[in-house]
């Protein structure tokens, strides 16, 4: 009986891994412009041998591949960060933006847009960097405020996060009054999307993701302990405060990396860990890796829909994640209740 239980996560990971591979292939094969699978393979082959040329090559290697890979990295980062925050806060509604990263990144993006009054190339490089900085600084500020009295509990973090969020969001709106011309740019940025995907973005974000994901996977046992509550986790030898700082830093890195290139994409970080938990249980040794893979799959699929459903017109991917994910989540919930 216990053996069956041990096998289940392995099977799930294998299934998810296969699903991810299939999704990647599908994401590269389907797009606004139809490309025959044979041409896709040929284009990839030419890319590997460094002799890319022609329309299919540009489409596949220059446009679609970086976008699909970025979707995978962003989706995985958000879902993984969501799983970590949900464990730390023991709050099923915790999402990757819970510590005010949305408003911090938004303010950073706004400042970058204002600073680069013209739409030069510098702007498109500066905005993600500023958003990343804004997100990390905000989270540092929130954590610092929450631990002012030496304690660091979920309630203080949430309160500090909400307070800082409101303040920074107000600052952003205030700046918009003075720079209305940047409003559309800021708002689009906040709505999130993968239209800016490029190999350059991928080169920046992928290393952060790899570091964050690898680090988080070493925390799964401790995250399990956190399920018992701060005090009980302490009884069993966990330095709760130090661990919380570390885990927050990792989740924040993952979130900020995703936000900096894709803006605020909702739903994935909140729901994917839930879905995985409902199917595979709360053990983070299973939950974390499957959340990473699940988040990648969900965002690749959602982005596929976003860019193909009324092609050549694109719709924001956040709309897709919520529109498809919401009902699916409800279905999972009802199914769980029946059982």
């Amino acid at each position: 009986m216990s053996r069956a239980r041990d096998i289940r996560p392995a099977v799930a990971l294998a299934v998810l891994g296969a699903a991810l591979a299939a999704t990647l292939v599908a994401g590269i094969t389907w797009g606004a412009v139809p490309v025959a699978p044979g041409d896709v393979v040929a284009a990839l082959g030419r890319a590997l041998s460094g002799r890319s040329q022609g329309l299919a090559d540009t489409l596949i290697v220059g446009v679609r591949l970086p976008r699909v890979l970025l979707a995978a990295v962003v989706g995985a980062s958000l879902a993984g960060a969501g799983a970590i925050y949900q464990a730390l806060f023991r709050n099923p509604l915790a999402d990757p933006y819970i510590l005010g990263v949305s408003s911090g990144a938004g303010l950073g993006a706004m400042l970058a847009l204002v600073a680069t009054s013209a739409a030069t190339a510098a702007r498109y490089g500066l905005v993600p960097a500023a958003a990343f900085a804004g997100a990390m600084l905000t989270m540092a500020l929130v954590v610092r405020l929450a631990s002012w009295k030496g304690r660091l509990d979920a309630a203080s973090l949430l309160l500090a996060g909400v307070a800082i969020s409101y303040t920074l969001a107000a600052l952003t709106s205030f700046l918009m009054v003075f720079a209305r011309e940047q409003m559309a740019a800021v708002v689009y940025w906040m709505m999130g999307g993968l239209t800016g995907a490029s190999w350059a973005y991928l080169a920046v974000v992928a290393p952060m993701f790899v570091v964050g994901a690898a680090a988080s996977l070493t925390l799964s046992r401790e995250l399990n302990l956190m399920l018992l509550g701060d005090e009980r986790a302490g009884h069993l030898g966990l330095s709760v405060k130090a661990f919380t700082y570390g885990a927050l830093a990792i989740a924040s890195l993952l979130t900020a990396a995703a936000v900096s290139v894709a803006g605020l994409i909702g739903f994935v970080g909140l729901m994917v860990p839930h879905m995985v938990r409902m199917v595979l249980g709360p053990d983070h040794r299973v939950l974390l890796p499957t959340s990473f893979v699940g988040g990648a799959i969900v965002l690749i699929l959602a982005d596929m829909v976003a860019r193909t459903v009324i092609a050549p017109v694109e719709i924001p991917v956040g709309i897709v994640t919520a529109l498809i994910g919401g009902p699916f989540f409800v279905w999972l919930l009802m199914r769980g209740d029946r059982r």
Partner: protein
Amino acid sequence: MNAATDVMLAYRGASVGYGEAVVVADADLEVRAGEVVGLVGPNGAGKSTLLRAVTGDADLRSGVVEVAGRSRSELSPRERASLVGVVPQQVSAAFSLPGREFVEMGRHPHLPRFGGPSETDRAAVRQALELTGTTNLASRPVDALSGGDLQRLALAQALAVEPRVLLLDEATAHLDLNHRLQVLDLVRDLADAGMAVLAVFHDLELAARYSDRIAIVAGGRLAGAGTPERVITAEALKEVFGVRAVVGPDAVTGSISVTPVLRDGAVARGRHGTVLVVGGGGTAAPLMRKLVLGGFTVLGAALNAGDADAVLAEALGLEYARIEPFAPMNAEAAVTVARFAERADVIVVGPVPFGRGNIDNLLVAVRARRPLVLVGAVDGRDFTGGAAESYWAEALEHGAVTVEDLAGAERAVFALAGGSDAEQ
């Protein structure tokens, strides 16, 4: 065995509390391998705080807490956790992990930073499940378990640590009787096998039954630990808990039995009458308790030590004329009763049989010429060959009130001496 004398947990001049606030000051206590030390005391006195000072959940303001001879502050959380197992009053498990993995969390302080549990770890988990009789819960999700089953798994989790010190914080409070005894028997066995156990008890009888030594925590202090018989006394209970109780050896277990009689706080204020009660053999005990609760000063007539009424009188802290067990009333006792009768506003003669040993109680009661309440009829209670019946008749001649039972006697006393709020 050497281990039996090892001090595994020690408080030395320890003041513990939260932040600046000290809850228990200057505590000194040693817990040795192989013994169970019980902590008892009123709610909020700081029993749990003393335990929490070991795990770092409460602050140590001054003094030291030592675990296995090392100051608590020198130990890393992992080192401390590998030495000390904790079972809290209640554990929360709002997640769907199987029992085995829940228990395996206890192995955390022993596991390497990277890598999973080894065969040793699995064996420890298996043993903890077996010891606590929870092997059948190993594959059930913990969020579907009853509070009692979860609590036993929490004990298993603490035992999976393979600790040398076990802290129990009212760990059995939420268990049914069977599981409570099962858990405490196990704890006793573990102590006998060399573990040092410091346990907070809610239930004094359980504390006495399972502890080698008991210490009372009250008023911000930790009193010195001693054997249950020495520590749990009627006086201590009155002082610490404000409860008057009958404390005696339990007839069955040989441990201490505590029968709370009344709470000081429940005694009515503002009534000052004095009542002398003639009882014996437990015939007047309920009345004495009711009258004390009603605010009267109650005096007992002559009673043999160990008599049920005498035990109650002592628990209630009442004055009575004490005579040796099985001895008849002597002149000294009769004089004492006579003095009591003079102080009394009302005298009550309970439904006690009269023999040669106690007939003087009735004589003094009747001759005192105070308002007198006689409970029941004398028929069938006179084992003196007529003396009791004649005193009874004399009393009736002088206007004594007769009532049917103790409840009637209580009403009569309130009517005669209780003032306006007699019917309360």
